[in-house]
């Protein structure tokens, strides 16, 4: 048996799904978190029912990609659990009445039931059940309240018998139902609502946004550096380093396989950053240096997501983004991309038009540095002074904006206007935040570790075959002539395709000036994304889109690298 969870966006379907199946999914307090669909199983008596979390939709006439997925899936269901936001009964019932025409057995879950009390809303669930003629169960998926009752009522699902109606007939019917089952008492604005309104008005909203961003970066750095300084570095120094030295001794201290496995000895010691062995640099960079920042980043982002802040930010920044051919909602994939480009590019699915998705995905892969890259840039350039790190960031922001303005002119198609629901603020439950952080961290490790280990292996072999020399000869004029970097940096930039972290380590070994480090970091950040995001980019945009994106990337990198070099020399 296939059971579909259907409802408006942001009514808690994903939390509901998690409760039914025990499958952990990422749920956030903004519409459109679930774009593809997620499957899980629920034991019903002797049978295992398949539960499908369908992307949220307002109507059964699709108006965006996520809604298309929802409508295509509907005929496959044997039963529908229609999840409603009880605090928005009227709007939610429109979909319910449309669903009732489909001839599929259904039950109705009045989710977010706990919030109705705070909001002065009283709903007569029994009366609603009588009017709809299908089981109606109040639930609070986040806390689990009412979930047992919901499961118990699945067997009592009924096929509603209603004639096909027009939109206005459905709205009229919705109006009649709401009038009979719902009473709303007046109450005062809560502080959350006041804060919500303040953060969406230009005069108060922009300072609030600036303060939130500043606080976010400060907290991310504090947590990231704390984890590195107090956890990963001591662990490596006390435990891993001695073990690796023993292994190095056992392998004879040098030779091809020695260098592949533990890396080259530097002054008789193994260096976790510069030795480049699979078990030293290959493990330390992702686990020791990058993972702490990834954890810190996703923790803060997860909090902002569940709080419900991101859609407000989308409204504030919509004006600027529209000039770049995308709309405010694009800020969500872009922010996600600052953790790891892969989930960022995947999240472009929440955008409606192909054109927008191309522009946002291309901008992410070129101008949005992932946590790994940022950690490396800070490590490499930070020694020269914070002002140089700022130049790298400022350049990338300018590139992001200017490239967006240009892409808006050259990419065909149109960009629809912003239209989103602004969710109320919620203080996120710790359990949900922890679960989300865990899933994202595991996801990052799954993506990053194989790529890093494969990369270091391939590079070592290619090095032995002298492949890099030929490419380096070809690219050297650009690197030294236009970017003002020594020819030896060419290797580093090319290796950057497979391993950005290693490339930055190599640049660090070249005794570059501060100016050269800045140019090198920017070029490396803009130049090819790592293999994992490259593959996802191709999958999301198709071959044509991928080629277009690569051309933009190459041109932008050469132009920006040269310009930055000229400016830095003149300054």
């Amino acid at each position, binding site marked *: 048996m296939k059971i579909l969870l259907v409802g408006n966006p942001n009514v808690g379907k994903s939390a509901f799904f998690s409760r039914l199946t025990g499958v952990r999914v990422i749920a956030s307090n903004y519409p459109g978190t679930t774009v593809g669909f997620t499957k899980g199983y629920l034991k019903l008596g002797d049978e295992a029912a398949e539960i499908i979390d369908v992307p949220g939709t307002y109507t059964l006439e699709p*108006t965006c990609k996520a809604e298309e997925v929802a409508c295509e899936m509907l005929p496959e269901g044997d039963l529908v659990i229609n999840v409603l936001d009880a605090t*928005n009964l009227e709007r939610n019932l429109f979909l319910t009445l449309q669903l009732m025409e489909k001839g599929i057995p259904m039950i109705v879950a009045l989710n977010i039931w706990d919030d109705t009390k705070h909001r002065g809303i009283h709903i007569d669930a029994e009366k609603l059940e009588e009017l709809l003629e299908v089981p109606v169960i109040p639930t609070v998926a986040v806390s689990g309240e009412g979930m047992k009752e919901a499961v118990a009522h699945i067997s009592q699902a009924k096929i509603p018998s209603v004639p096909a109606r027009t939109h206005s007939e459905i709205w009229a019917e919705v109006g009649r139902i709401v009038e009979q089952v719902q009473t709303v008492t007046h109450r005062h604005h809560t502080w959350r609502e006041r804060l*919500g309104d303040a953060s969406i*008005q*230009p005069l108060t909203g922009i300072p609030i946004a600036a303060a939130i961003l500043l606080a976010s970066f400060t907290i991310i750095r504090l947590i990231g550096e704390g984890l590195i300084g107090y956890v990963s570095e001591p662990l490596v120094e006390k435990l891993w380093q001695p073990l690796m030295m023993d292994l190095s001794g056992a392998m004879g201290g040098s030779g091809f396989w020695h260098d592949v496995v533990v890396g080259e000895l530097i002054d008789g010691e193994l260096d976790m950053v510069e030795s480049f062995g699979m078990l030293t640099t290959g493990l330390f960079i992702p686990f020791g240096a990058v993972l702490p920042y990834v954890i810190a980043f996703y923790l803060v982002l997860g909090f902002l997501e569940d709080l419900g802040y991101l859609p407000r930010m989308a409204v504030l920044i*919509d004006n600027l983004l529209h000039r770049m051919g995308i709309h405010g909602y694009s800020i969500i994939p872009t922010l996600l991309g600052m953790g790891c480009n892969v989930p960022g590019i995947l999240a472009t699915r929440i955008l409606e038009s192909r054109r927008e998705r191309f522009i946002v995905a291309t901008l992410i892969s070129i101008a949005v540095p992932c946590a790994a890259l940022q950690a490396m840039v800070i490590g490499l350039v930070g020694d020269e002074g914070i002002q140089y790190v700022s130049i790298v960031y400022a350049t990338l922001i300018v590139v992001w904006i200017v490239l967006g303005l240009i892409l808006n002119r050259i990419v065909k198609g149109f960009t629809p*206007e912003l239209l989103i629901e*602004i969710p109320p603020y919620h203080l996120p439950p710790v359990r949900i935040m922890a679960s989300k952080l865990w899933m994202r961290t595991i996801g990052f490790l799954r993506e990053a570790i194989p790529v890093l280990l494969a990369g270091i292996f391939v590079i070592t072999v290619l090095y032995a075959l002298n492949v890099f020399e030929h490419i380096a000869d070809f690219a050297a004029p650009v690197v030294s002539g236009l970017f003002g970097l020594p020819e030896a940096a060419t290797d580093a930039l090319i290796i950057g395709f497979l391993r950005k972290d290693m490339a930055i380590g190599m640049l660090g070994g070249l005794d570059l000036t501060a100016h050269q480090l800045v140019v090198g970091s920017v070029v490396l950040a803009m130049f090819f994304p790592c293999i994992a995001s490259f593959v996802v980019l191709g999958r999301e945009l198709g071959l044509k889109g991928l080629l277009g994106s690569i051309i933009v990337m190459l041109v932008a990198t050469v132009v920006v690298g040269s310009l930055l070099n000229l400016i830095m020399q003149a300054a």
Partner: protein
Amino acid sequence: MTEKRRITAAQMKAGQSGWVVEVGKGRGMRRVEAMGLRSGKRITKVSGMFGRGPVTIQIEGTQLALGFGMAQKIIVEVT
């Protein structure tokens, strides 16, 4: 007795309320209606971004942010 005027949601001031008398046609406007912004509803404008930016509107328990062009197609009766 105050006089009733018809203006667009884009012309409303932040904090001003009114009754929706017409939701125009066009791209995305069906979705606007499906999201609950329909003729006969009482709405309050929460904010409008400067420079023809998005307009945020409160309808009962829901807040919607919509593009300036869409807000211009929503006719509201205010007093």
